[in-house]
């Protein structure tokens, strides 16, 4: 059984991390290398500089205007719940921090494991709720493609297997950990090729729109 764990921790993880890094770099670099042939008209006078505008928009769009929030309360709250939950789970668990320390050479303080577990449970339910919403809401059904379900499913798997492993439920602990790591590998391999990339692209598109709006003097 430890063969599976060795495989997951060893070559599987190494290869998937490489694919993740190169894939993400490829997508970002190819995007930045796309030729820009737009000749901009002069900006409105006395407007914010591009850097401030870009960063400002990245932050500002974390909370929608109240006019829209009212109608999208579920999407807003649920979105925050699983993004924060995911961040706590990935970066707050002692076991994960050990892994990052191995790769990065440094670690950080971990959060209490019960707290991380609670965050994991919330994340899991919240992810499942978002998939259910996608399957039932007419707008989301119209928009959804295989990529959406795949991205959702591949995010659920590591969270679910991670929780099972922490709770020692179902199979032997070693087997559960191996399955957990393998599910992370699949997640990492898929990441650069689908909409999971939004975790990086969000900075690009928000900033781009922020810069354009600031140039025109549009204050949101």
């Amino acid at each position, binding site marked *: 059984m430890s063969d599976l764990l060795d495989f997951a921790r060893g070559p599987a993880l190494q290869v998937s991390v490489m694919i993740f890094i190169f894939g993400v770099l490829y*997508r970002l670099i*190819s*995007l930045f290398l*796309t*030729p*820009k*042939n*737009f*000749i*901009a*008209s*002069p900006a*409105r006078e006395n*407007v914010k500089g591009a850097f401030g505008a870009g960063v400002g*928009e990245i932050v500002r*769009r974390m909370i*929608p*205007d109240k*006019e*829209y929030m009212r*109608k*999208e309360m579920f*999407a807003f709250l649920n*979105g925050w719940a699983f993004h924060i939950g995911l961040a706590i789970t990935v970066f707050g668990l002692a076991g994960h921090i050990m892994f990052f320390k191995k790769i990065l050479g440094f670690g950080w303080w971990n959060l209490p494991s019960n707290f991380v577990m609670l965050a994991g449970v919330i994340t899991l339910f919240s992810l499942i709720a978002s998939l259910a919403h996608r399957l039932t*809401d*007419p*707008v*989301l*059904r*119209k*928009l*959804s*493609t295989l990529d*959406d379900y795949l991205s959702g499913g591949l995010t659920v798997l590591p969270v679910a297997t991670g929780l099972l492993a922490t709770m020692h439920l179902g199979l032997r602990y070693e087997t559960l950990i191996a399955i957990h790591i393998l599910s992370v590998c699949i997640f990492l391999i898929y990441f650069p090729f689908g*909409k999971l*990339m*939004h975790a990086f*692209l*969000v900075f*690009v*598109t*928000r*900033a*781009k*729109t*922020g810069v*354009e*709006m600031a140039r*025109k*003097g*549009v*204050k*949101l």
Partner: protein
Amino acid sequence: MENNNPTPKPKDASKAVEKFLVSSASQLAPYLEACIHCGQCAHACHFYEVTQDPKYTPAYKLFPMTKAYRRSKNPLNWLGMIPTLEEDEIAEWQDLVFNGCTMCGRCTNVCPMGIDVAQIVGATRQALTAAGYYPEDLMAAAENVVQHGSPLKVSTSVLEDRLEWIADESETDIPLDKKGAEVMFTISSIELMKYPDSVGAMAKMLNAAGVNWTISTKGYESTNFGYLAGRPDIAKLGTSRLVNAAEELGVKELIIPECGHAYSVLRWNGANIMGRPLGFKVYHITEYLAKLKREGKLKFKSIETAFTYHDPCQISRRGGAADDARYLLEGFAPNFVEMKVTGNQNWCCGGGGGVQAMNKYRDMRINVFKIKAKQVEETGTNTMISACANCRLTMDESIAELKWGGKLDSLVEILADNLIED
């Protein structure tokens, strides 16, 4: 008039794709890669709001272009394994990107990724038009620009006649082709033919402020139906008429009248359309009047009437000039009330982006107006003013159809009526 635009070729779907690739690769790539299909933009769009039909979700309007883009980037594309856009798909999206989007940009405000759907819709229109998929009535208006100088067939002689009559009616001067003028004023044919009082009002205020201005018979039409119809050749023709006329006169400033898209096209896209910076500054009339007011050259009597303001999308949300309209109202209209949802978040009139010129969506426009009517009623006033003749035309049509009890006025007319002349 010069005629340098070939009539679009017969329908050819793959050409649409090609055309798109050229126009999107530069500006839109990040947007096309980033949509997370969260659907939050649906409620921001007036077409979705009044129909509750998911096909009007802004993100759905991006689909053909996203597909074409992904196809072009897919490494397996050369094997011929990646499906192309089918003709029936293109036909479905013709309706969505022409009739079903006013390019108002409201969806961008809510999008967590900040995707500018309106810009992509603009590129999609170009792509579909190049492949022969376009609404006939919108294209006819654009073709009129080539043949007759304006979408409403305002030729030079019609222009001269109308301006002479307007000058008489409003008892003011309207200088034509004046040598040595410092400012060139342009007209929207919608105003000239349907709201002539607006033209008279603007002339009166420019004269009162002592502006050395003129209208040019070589470039007068400020609307740009080529842009709206996805015809870059006609868009450029319209733009170059204005630019050449202004540069020939040697003016330092050019004023766009009460027309939203005219402002947005020349002010924010003019340099790109021409492929070079313009030799003069472009102002919307509200910006220009605000400048004159700031300089102390215009003064108005204050009025008691309570009213609210409808922000034209292309001037406020997409133009950045929302504050200037408010500045004009400061001290002038103490009973001015903002709508609950206003400024850069305002609801569109339903007829922008050329939708007003497309007969197919007449009923839709009238339904969209119900959002506006409710907004106005909530302010407790029954009058709304605006600064775009196209918004006005769209909403006047609905007001008449619905026999709505409220009133719609133009900002420049109401200001000119209360101008303090020395």
